[in-house]
């Protein structure tokens, strides 16, 4: 019984990050928050992410983090570098929103030969 609980705890995955946002796809829940919390135009920032599989989906094998401006039809001038921190937890460094306006985060979670794209809009004043 104790052993079973330990296994369950080890596989428990909570995507929520304090002060962050949560986005969902069919197979994954992704919680994320930025550092610093308030994104400034033209300043580099990082994103902390928690990627949790849903309903028996496989653990994420690869995570790509990007962002673009849908109304402007262009992305960032910088490429985010994603590093795993622990199981399910990642940190993406080097992002920069170089214009005010509506940006959309893109999180591509790949596993089992498929990619789930999760997005979240944010308006930068």
């Amino acid at each position, binding site marked *: 019984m104790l052993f079973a609980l330990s296994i369950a705890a080890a596989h428990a995955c909570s995507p929520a990050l304090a002060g962050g946002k949560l986005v969902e796809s069919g197979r994954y829940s992704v919680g994320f928050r930025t550092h610093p919390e308030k994104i400034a135009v033209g300043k580099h920032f990082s994103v902390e992410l928690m990627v949790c599989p849903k309903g028996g989906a496989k653990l994420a094998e690869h995570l790509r983090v990007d962002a673009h401006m849908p109304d*402007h039809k262009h992305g*960032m001038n910088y490429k985010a*570098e994603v590093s795993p921190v622990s199981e399910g937890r990642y940190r993406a*460094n080097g992002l920069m929103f170089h*214009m*005010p306006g509506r940006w959309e985060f893109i999180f591509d979670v790949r596993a089992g030969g498929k990619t789930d794209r999760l997005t979240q809009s944010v308006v930068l004043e």
Partner: protein
Amino acid sequence: MNPRGPLAMLAAVLAAGFLATDIFRAGPQAGSGSPGNLLTLAVDFSQAEIARILQHGPWPVAPANDPSNRFSGQAEAVEFGRKLFFEKRLSGNGLSSCATCHLPERHFTDGKARGEGFVVLERNTPGLLNVRLNRWFGWDGAADSLWSQSLRPIVDKREMAASTTHVGKLMRSDPRLAEDYRKAFGMPPSEDDDLVTLNTGKSLAAFQETLVTGRTSFDDFRDALERRDAKAANQYPAAAQRGLRIFVGKGNCFVCHFGPNFTNGEFGDIGIPFFVAPGKVDPGRYGGIQKLLESRANLLGGFSDDASGKSAASTRHVRLEHRNWGEFRVPSLRNVANTAPYMHNGHLATLRDVVRYYSELNEDRLHADGEKILKPLRLTDAEVDDLVAFLQSL
């Protein structure tokens, strides 16, 4: 009448200055300066417009040393850099210095459409005022530090046409320069020509970091808005206020010319032809990123003094994309009235030409994968005048 009714409450709120939109509403007596008319401006700025205006200050930006340059902010290095800026012997033929093209009396530009060294160059000579605030240097951003950028023209065969050997020999052979070098860097010029030239660049950068513009009538207006001082705000000409509204409104100029230095420090394609000769193009930012990443003097290399590596973040993460072809650095608009001609190739002679260029923008010239919010502004003659008045106030 109930003294606590809505009108009494509104009067109390207005007197306390709590509602910025009401305080800054437009009125027929705008700009009259009458003591009783403190609640009017020439332009009825919305809250959103006021918020955008406030983002373009305060000015000046607090000075900060460049962590990649250990001589940044060091008085002796600044003074040595000032002398070197005017030192013609730094050039290969002894006839030109940094100041030959970056003339102080011309706000550190040369007034020519395209720079002239040993040949006529392909780009306009950019001004140096407030250059310390740049993230990228040069029209293509091929340098990621001011000291690295300062080395480029010295060894460029088309510009000053010197070499590291030439610079090293000069510093060692001239007793006065050698003594100034020792004072600035705490050691005499060594036999290591690369190091001597590197220090020369860092000293030149330390000097250029001191080149800043003062406050302007726009800054006074912006600060008056922030402290809700309508009387002071109304000292700003009505035409400039109307032009400012275009800038933060339908012109969308603020999207790129963002922040206290009126630039987001990045790059854009605005449809200026980049053919510089038959069959030859200026690749702009695309070539700039390639040069940056190939350079031994970028911030990822061993010449940076920033052990933390934090100042190299942009270089570490910069992304080369096809859309970078024909992109050029978004210039600051501060002091812009004094730095004609305009654009990366200097082909627009006046600010009015620049405004008309955006007003009549040829969308066919824009990249298919470029910025999609660029549209012809279709300004009236009066609006052109207003936008020019605003730009002249920076």
